[in-house]
């Protein structure tokens, strides 16, 4: 049964259906989108039950010849990492639709278009994580930009058009570098394997000379570093996240950016092991800079814009993820993959709640809030829990992943791990300062009559908070899925001195 | 003796003579096209070139094309040009003054560059074998040879190009077509309008002056008071400045006075 194709097609069909509805039927469009995305989420979970956790390779494999002249295949398949990221996308999409029920009203186009775009985006997210053919991956990687571009540029706030263009240009720039590398790989594979191919598992067999490998690696890495985003390729993120609607930001930071770190593991490490090892220390340094840089700027924003603040915290978190990836240890790798999932949920919660706060107060400045805990206790609590998850409090999901990353790094690079650990102090600052400013203190004028969460919002946020807490205590559920792939990936690097 | 024969890549002497007589005429005509002020003259010079080309086609063993060149180009296409010139107005002569800065010098340099490079490339080109001539191909006649190839190998292109031609014809019709905004006026309405407005003389335009010693189409008639009637001659003639002065044909008033 072609699980992945069906999974990917469902939202696409749904989006067509939503798009064909008459313009006035806004509520119906929303309900339809919610229904379809929930159906897809259920289908995805059903698929996950038949996933074999014991093996490291691809499962649910589909492979059809697509453009035989260029050796391009329609190849799909997932390993543990891809499966979890797909599930993350599938769970977050209905949450976002429900949470952002009334977000599309201020848009340039009709409400139904917003939801249709969200569903298209869901298809792209499934595709990009499921593709096993590098060409197909590239196709989804770039095609994903289109709905996001329209979601930011058409439905955002403030300087949405500029932010959308900035996002698009950054991503395209990275994408083109990657395309060059893909073509390079294709050409080399033609020389070495006899038949040129785009199949990842075939391409792993190549043996490149050092110069070529470095260049091709950089093409991929810069594309992924922009996507992730890693310092110094990050400046599009705060602008995009600020301009986008909270729902879009959730998918952008929660899922789309994971394509960057996902790609680093799937392509950079597996296709270019030697270049990865050679440049690993440099990337570790970049990651550390990201951790601190993001944290400091988040602290700076703790008196500024709440959405920019969250996006800077994400830059810091992505620093941890890349740190774990390029530590080349089983703990670091598993921790990073787990971090991707956990960060997805905690950032989703932060962004959704921040979005509700902004919608209620009509301002995104931290200084305009104050005393929310008195007025809207539930809202304040959910924000606080999401914030605690973001600062990696033990008992919440992010802790396990952050700690695994640090332990994994410590095994190979103790100094880097020590420096990275200092980042947790800054994490406390960038969460607690805004928490104090927005939630504590006297109730500021203008906030007296804010409404607490309504039923729809409660239903939307409850599963996210529940998962944040649950995965804090039972991360092994996820780790069992992640471990085989991560261990195989690290073992394939074949680093001397490892047992 | 085959006039079109080629020996060691050289043509027969008569063909060379033909070439060296005709080609300077054609080049000069082409240069003339660039330099003459009036579009009509350009058109005529173009016709000269085309006829020259037709002759060269025939000399090059392409008799069918040569004839077609004369019929289609020099006949139909040039006629079309002239018609359009007539529509647009022969008076719209070009001033050769250049208005875009650097255009003329650029054009001359560019064209010289193109010409120089083309000729230098052509001079260096080499087929790698002696020129063969079309004697063998044209055994059954040039038209048959063309037909054999056109309707076999190039039949698809032929069909496509015919579709293109039809489309072009339709396109020209669409472009030239003007949508009627008001219902077509009946003759009666036209007549009534004409009387009411009285802009155009109801009785029709006056004819040109008719004088015995001259074809008088270019000479305005004289009104009863002796002034020339502008309406009596074609505007085109007036625009071309070819109006003759009617006063030369006036009766000698002094004589009349003297008789009285």
């Amino acid at each position, binding site marked *: 049964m072609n699980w992945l194709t069906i999974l990917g097609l469902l939202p696409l069909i749904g989006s067509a259906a939503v798009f064909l509805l008459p313009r006035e039927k806004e509520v119906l469009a929303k309900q339809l989108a919610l229904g379809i995305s929930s159906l897809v989420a259920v289908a995805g979970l059903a698929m996950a039950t038949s996933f074999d956790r014991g093996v490291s390779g691809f499962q649910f494999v589909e492979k059809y010849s697509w453009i035989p002249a260029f050796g391009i295949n329609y190849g799909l398949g997932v390993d543990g990492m891809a499966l979890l990221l797909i599930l993350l996308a599938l769970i977050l999409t209905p949450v976002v639709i429900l949470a952002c029920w009334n977000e599309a009203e201020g848009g340039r186009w009709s409400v139904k278009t917003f939801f249709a775009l969200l569903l298209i985006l869901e298809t792209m997210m499934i595709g990009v994580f499921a593709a096993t053919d590098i060409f197909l991956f590239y196709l989804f990687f770039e095609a994903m930009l289109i709905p996001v571009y329209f979601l930011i540029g058409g439905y955002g706030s403030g300087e949405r058009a500029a932010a959308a263009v900035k996002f698009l240009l950054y991503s395209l720039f990275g994408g083109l570098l990657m395309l060059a590398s893909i073509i390079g790989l294709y050409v080399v594979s033609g020389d070495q394997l006899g038949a040129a191919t785009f199949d990842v598992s075939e391409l792993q067999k190549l043996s490149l000379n050092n110069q070529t490998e470095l260049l091709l690696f950089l093409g991929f890495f810069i594309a992924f570093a922009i996507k992730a985003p890693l310092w110094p390729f990050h400046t599009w993120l705060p602008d995009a996240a600020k301009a986008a609607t909270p729902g879009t930001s959730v998918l952008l930071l929660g899922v789309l950016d994971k394509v960057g770190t996902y790609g680093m593991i799937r392509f950079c490490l597996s296709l270019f092991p030697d270049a990865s090892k050679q440049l690993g220390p440099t990337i570790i340094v970049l990651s550390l800079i990201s951790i601190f840089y993001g944290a400091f700027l988040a602290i700076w924003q703790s008196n500024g814009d709440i959405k920019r603040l969250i996006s800077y915290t994400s830059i810091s978190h992505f620093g941890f993820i890349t740190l774990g990836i390029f530590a080349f240890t089983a703990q670091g790798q598993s921790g990073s993959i787990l971090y991707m999932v956990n960060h997805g949920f905690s950032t989703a919660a932060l962004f959704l709640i921040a979005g509700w706060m902004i919608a209620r107060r009509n301002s995104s400045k931290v200084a305009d809030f104050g005393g929310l805990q008195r007025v809207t206790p539930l809202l304040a609590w959910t924000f606080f829990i999401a914030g605690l998850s973001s600062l990696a409090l033990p008992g919440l999901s992010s802790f396990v992943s952050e700690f695994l990353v640090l332990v994994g790094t410590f095994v190979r690079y103790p100094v880097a791990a020590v420096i990275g650990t200092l980042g947790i102090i800054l994490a406390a600052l960038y969460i607690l300062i805004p928490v104090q400013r927005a939630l504590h203190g006297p109730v500021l004028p203008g906030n007296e009559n804010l409404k607490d969460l309504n039923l729809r919002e409660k239903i939307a946020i409850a599963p996210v908070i529940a998962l944040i807490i649950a995965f804090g205590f039972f991360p092994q559920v996820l780790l069992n899925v992640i471990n085989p792939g991560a261990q195989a990936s690290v073992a394939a690097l074949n680093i001397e001195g490892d047992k | 003796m085959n006039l079109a024969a080629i020996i060691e890549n050289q043509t027969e002497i008569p063909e060379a003579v033909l070439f060296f007589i005709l080609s300077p005429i054609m080049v000069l005509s082409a240069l003339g096209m*660039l330099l003459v002020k009036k579009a009509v003259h350009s058109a005529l010079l173009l016709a000269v070139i085309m006829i020259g080309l037709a002759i060269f086609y025939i000399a090059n063993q392409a008799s069918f094309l040569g004839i077609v060149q004369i019929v289609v180009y020099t006949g139909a296409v040039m006629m079309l040009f002239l018609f*359009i010139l007539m529509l647009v107005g022969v008076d719209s002569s070009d001033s050769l003054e250049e208005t875009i800065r650097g255009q003329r010098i650029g054009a001359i340099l560019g064209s010289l560059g193109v010409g120089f490079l083309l000729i230098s490339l052509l001079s260096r080109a080499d087929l790698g074998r002696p020129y063969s001539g079309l004697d063998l191909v044209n055994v059954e006649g040039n038209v048959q040879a063309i037909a054999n190839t056109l309707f076999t190998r190039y039949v698809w292109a032929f069909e496509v190009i015919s579709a293109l031609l039809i489309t072009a014809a339709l396109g020209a019709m669409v*472009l030239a077509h003007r949508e009627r905004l008001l219902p077509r006026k009946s003759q009666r309405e036209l007549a009534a309008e004409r009387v009411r407005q009285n802009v155009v003389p109801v009785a029709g335009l006056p004819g040109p002056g008719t004088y015995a010693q001259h074809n008088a189409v270019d000479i305005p008639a004289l009104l009863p008071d002796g002034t020339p009637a502008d309406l009596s001659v074609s505007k085109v003639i007036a625009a071309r400045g070819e109006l003759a002065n009617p006063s030369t044909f006036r009766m000698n008033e002094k004589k009349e006075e003297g008789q009285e």
Partner: protein
Amino acid sequence: MSLDYYLYLSALLFTIGAAGVLIRRNAIVVFMCIELMLNASNLAFVTFARMNGSIDGQIFAFFTMVVAACEVVVGLAIIVTIYRSRRSASVDDARLLKL
């Protein structure tokens, strides 16, 4: 005389036609210059056909003529339309490409 001379003539006529397109402003004259360029290339085709001993060159020239005819028909119709609305046949007057 070498057959190449036809080619040189063709190149010369083509060049003069190009110069005409660049220099003349009357749209009709420009068109005539384009016709000149097309015809010049036809001469080259015909000459190539003779050099190669293959009729294909003539077929090409034939097709070129048809295309040229189409182009003239449509082009002149456009000129007429433009003239109708602008009262001018100068190519410099129609510059809506730049606002």
